[in-house]
C-alpha cells in the first residue's frame, strides 16, 4: 500500500448488516489488488448470505470484474481475506499454495461475459468436462445430470452441436449449465448479458432468475439495473476500487444515499 492510500474505505461506506438471517456463505474483507501502478481494488468488503443474489454494479473500471476474478482464483489479490462457508479461510497477505487456489475454485463457478466455451467440443462435452476430468465423477451420472440441465435451459436438442453453431444467447446458457454442472456453492456471473444482442438478453436473464428462485447463491456483475432490482437481495455499488454503497435494491437503486451512486444510477436509467 502506498502512503497516499486512505487507511479505510471511502466516507459513507457502511458495512451493511446481513439482509437475511442465514450465515454468510461468502465473506470478503479488505480485498486489495493492483495491476502495476493501477490499484484496481483498494479495500473491498463483501458479505453474501447463503441463497442470496448480490448484484455488483458500478462504472466500468470500478473493479467489479476483478472482484469476481479474485474469488475464482483467476487473479491473486495482494491482500485481504476470503472466507467461504466458514470452512475455507484464505488470507492473501501470504502467497497461496496451489491447493488453496484449487479449493477456492472448487467452491465457485464462473460464467464469463464472452462465454469462453471450448470450441473443439460439443455442448455436452463442454458441460461434462469439469465434472468428469477434474472432479472424477462417474461419466454416466454426469451425462444424465448434464442432459437434465440442458433441457432446463431449453437446449436439450443442442447436446451434440458445437458452440460455433449456437447463437450468443444459447452459448451463454451453455456457459451457465457448464458452471452449474460443477455443483458450486457460489455462482459468479461476469456481465453475463453484455456481449449479447438485445433480443437475446431476456432468455439468459430468465435462466438466471430461475436459478435465484431455486436458492442458488450468486454474485452478479451487471449493468442491467432493472434486472438487479427484480432479482437481487443486495445491490453493491462500487467505484474506483471501493464499495461506495450497498443495501436493498429498492434503496440503492431508487433512493441512493451517496451522490456517486445517484449519478451512476441516473446515467444508466436515462442515458440521454
Amino acid at each position, binding site marked *: 500500500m502506498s502512503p497516499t492510500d486512505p487507511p479505510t474505505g471511502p466516507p459513507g461506506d457502511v458495512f451493511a448488516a446481513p439482509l437475511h438471517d442465514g450465515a454468510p456463505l461468502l465473506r470478503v474483507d479488505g480485498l486489495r489488488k493492483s495491476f502495476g501502478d493501477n490499484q484496481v481494488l483498494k479495500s473491498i468488503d463483501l458479505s453474501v448470505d447463503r441463497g442470496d443474489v448480490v448484484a455488483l454494479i458500478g462504472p466500468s473500471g470500478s473493479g467489479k470484474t476483478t472482484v469476481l476474478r479474485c474469488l*475464482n*482464483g*483467476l487473479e491473486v489479490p495482494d491482500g485481504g481475506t476470503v472466507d467461504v462457508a466458514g470452512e475455507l479461510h484464505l488470507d492473501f497477505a501470504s502467497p497461496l499454495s*496451489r491447493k488453496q487456489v*484449487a479449493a477456492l*475454485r*472448487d467452491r465457485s*463457478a*464462473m460464467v*464469463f461475459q*464472452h462465454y*469462453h*466455451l*471450448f*470450441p*473443439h*467440443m460439443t455442448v455436452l462435452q463442454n458441460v461434462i*468436462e*469439469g465434472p468428469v*476430468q*477434474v*472432479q472424477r465423477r462417474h461419466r454416466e451420472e454426469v451425462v444424465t445430470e448434464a442432459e437434465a440441465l440442458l433441457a432446463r435451459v431449453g437446449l436439450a436438442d443442442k447436446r451434440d452441436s*458445437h*458452440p*460455433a453453431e449456437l447463437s450468443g444467447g444459447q452459448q451463454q446458457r451453455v456457459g451457465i449449465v*457448464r*458452471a452449474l454442472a*460443477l455443483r458450486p456453492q457460489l455462482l459468479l456471473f461476469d456481465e453475463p448479458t453484455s456481449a449479447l444482442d438485445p433480443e437475446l438478453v431476456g432468455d439468459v436473464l430468465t435462466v438466471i432468475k430461475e436459478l435465484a428462485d431455486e436458492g442458488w447463491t450468486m454474485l452478479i456483475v451487471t449493468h442491467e439495473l432493472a434486472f438487479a432490482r427484480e432479482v437481487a437481495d443486495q445491490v453493491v455499488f462500487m467505484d474506483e476500487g471501493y464499495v461506495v454503497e450497498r443495501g436493498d435494491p429498492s434503496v440503492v437503486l431508487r433512493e441512493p444515499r451517496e451522490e456517486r451512486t445517484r449519478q451512476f444510477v441516473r446515467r444508466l436509467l436515462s442515458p440521454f
Partner: protein
Amino acid sequence: MNIDWHLVGTSLWPIVRGGLLGTIPLTLASFVAGLLIALVVALMRISGRAPLSAVARVYISVIRGTPLLVQLFVIFYGLPSVGVTLSPWPSAIIAFSLNVGGYAAEVIRAAILSVPKGQWEAAHTIGMSRRQALRRIILPQAARVSVPPLSNTFISLVKDTSLASLILVAELFRKAQEVAAFSQEFMVLYLEAAAVYWVFCLFLSAGQNLVEERLDRYVAH
C-alpha cells in the same frame, strides 16, 4: 535434345522405389520425432522459467541460423572424430528431426499463444491444472491453427531429405544420381527425379486439405 524415353521408363521404378523406401520413411520418421522435440521446446519456451526458456531459445537460434547440410555433415562426418560413429540412416533421422524441431517449435509456440486467454481461464475455472488445460483445451485448438504452417514444414522436409544422398542414404535423389552416373543422361534423370518429388508433394498437399477440412468443423469462425 533427344529424350531417351526408354531410359526414362527403366529408371522410373528405381527412382520411385528410392522415394518409397528412402525419402518417405526418412521424412515420416524425422517429422514425427521432430514434432515431439518441437512440442517440448515450445513448452519450454512458454514455461515462464528463465533457464528452460533460454535453452529453448538458443536451440532454435542455432538450428535456424545454420545450414541443414552443415548440421547433417557435423553429425555424420564430424561426430566420428569425437568417438560417435553413426550409420547414414540414424545420422539423417537425427539431423532432420533436430532441424524440424527447431522450426516447428516456433510454429507450435505461436499456435499455443494464438488460443485466446479466455480458454485458459475457462479451463482453470472448471478446476483444471495448467497441464490438464494444455492437454485437453489448449493443444487441440493449437493443433488446428498449426496444420497449415506445419504442412509447409513437412513438404519442405520431403525435399530436404534429398540432402541425405550426400551421406549415402539410398533415397530418391541418390537413386537418380546412380542411374545418371551410369548412363550420363543427367538432364533427363534429374528432371525425372524432380517430377517424382513434385507428384509426391501434390499428394501431400491434397492430404493437408483433407486434414484441414476435418479439423475445421470443430473451430469457431
